[in-house]
C-alpha cells in the first residue's frame, strides 16, 4: 500500500532533517512522532520537516504534528517546516500550527534559521 507516508531522516550536527513522501494521516503522523522523539532522545535540538513530497496532510496528521511541536517546545528545542504546498501551508495556518512553529519556503532557509537560533 504505497499511500502511506515514507520518511527519511538525516542528522546534521544537532539538527535532524525529515523528508516525508506521501500522505500524512494518523499512521504517517505517528511515524513522524516516533522518529522525532527518537531524535530528541538522541540529542537533536532542532527538527526540520521538509514536506516537499507530501501533497496531503489530514487534520489527524496535523494534530499529531502539533503534539510533536509541543514536546519539542517542552524540551526547549526548535521545530521548523519547509517546502509546503499552498494548501498545506493554509491548513497549518488555520489550525494555528504556523503561530507556534516556523515555516520556511526552502530547506536552506529553514536550516539557516534553526542554526542561527542555536
Amino acid at each position, binding site marked *: *500500500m504505497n*499511500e*502511506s507516508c515514507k520518511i527519511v531522516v538525516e542528522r546534521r550536527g544537532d539538527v535532524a532533517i525529515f523528508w516525508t513522501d506521501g*500522505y500524512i*494521516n494518523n*499512521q504517517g503522523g505517528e511515524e513522524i512522532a516516533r522518529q522525532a522523539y527518537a531524535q530528541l532522545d538522541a540529542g537533536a535540538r532542532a527538527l526540520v520537516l521538509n514536506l516537499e513530497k507530501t*501533497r*496531503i496532510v*489530514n*487534520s*489527524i496528521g*496535523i*494534530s*499529531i504534528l*502539533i*503534539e510533536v511541536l*509541543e514536546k519539542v517546545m517542552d524540551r526547549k528545542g526548535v521545530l521548523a517546516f519547509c517546502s509546503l*504546498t*499552498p*494548501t498545506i501551508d*493554509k*491548513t497549518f495556518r*488555520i*489550525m*494555528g500550527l504556523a*503561530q*507556534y512553529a516556523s515555516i520556511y519556503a526552502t530547506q536552506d532557509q529553514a536550516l539557516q534559521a534553526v542554526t542561527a537560533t542555536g
Partner: protein
Amino acid sequence: MPRHETVHSGLDGAGSREVSLTIPVASDMEIVATAQVSALGEYIDMPHDKIDEVKLALVEACINAFEHAHTRDDRVHLTFRVGRDEDGPDFLEVEVFDQGKGFDHSGVEVPTPEKTFTGGKKRGWGLQIMRSLMDTVVITSGEWGTKILMRKYK
C-alpha cells in the same frame, strides 16, 4: 454515414456531468477517492492548488464518515458534479453521504488554535477545514445519516 462516429458531446443536459463513487469504509480509501477530484478538476481546468483544497476537504469528510458515522452499509457514497452558474465560473461540487448515525453539527464546538495548543484538545478541525477550503459547505444530518455538500469555483 461518417466513418468515425463521435462519442456523445457531453454538453447535453444537467445530469451529464455527474459522477458517483462508492467507497468502502477502509483505510486510505479517502485517498483513492481524491483521484476523482483530480480528474474532474482537470476536466474543468481548475488550478492545481484549488484541486488540492477540494481533495483535502473530501479527505476530511470521508474520514469523518469512516470514524464517526458507524455506517450501516460500511460504505461512503460520493457524488461529484461539475457545472456552471449562469454567467459564472465553473464549479466542482462534492457530496459525501453516509448512512450512519448522524450528528447535530450546530452543537459541535468551534476549534481555535488556543484551545488546540493550551487546552489539550488537538482534534476537532475537520469541519472547520472543509469550511475554510471550500466556497460553500452545507451539512444535513439526521437518523438517516449525514450529507455534506461542498462546492468550489474554479
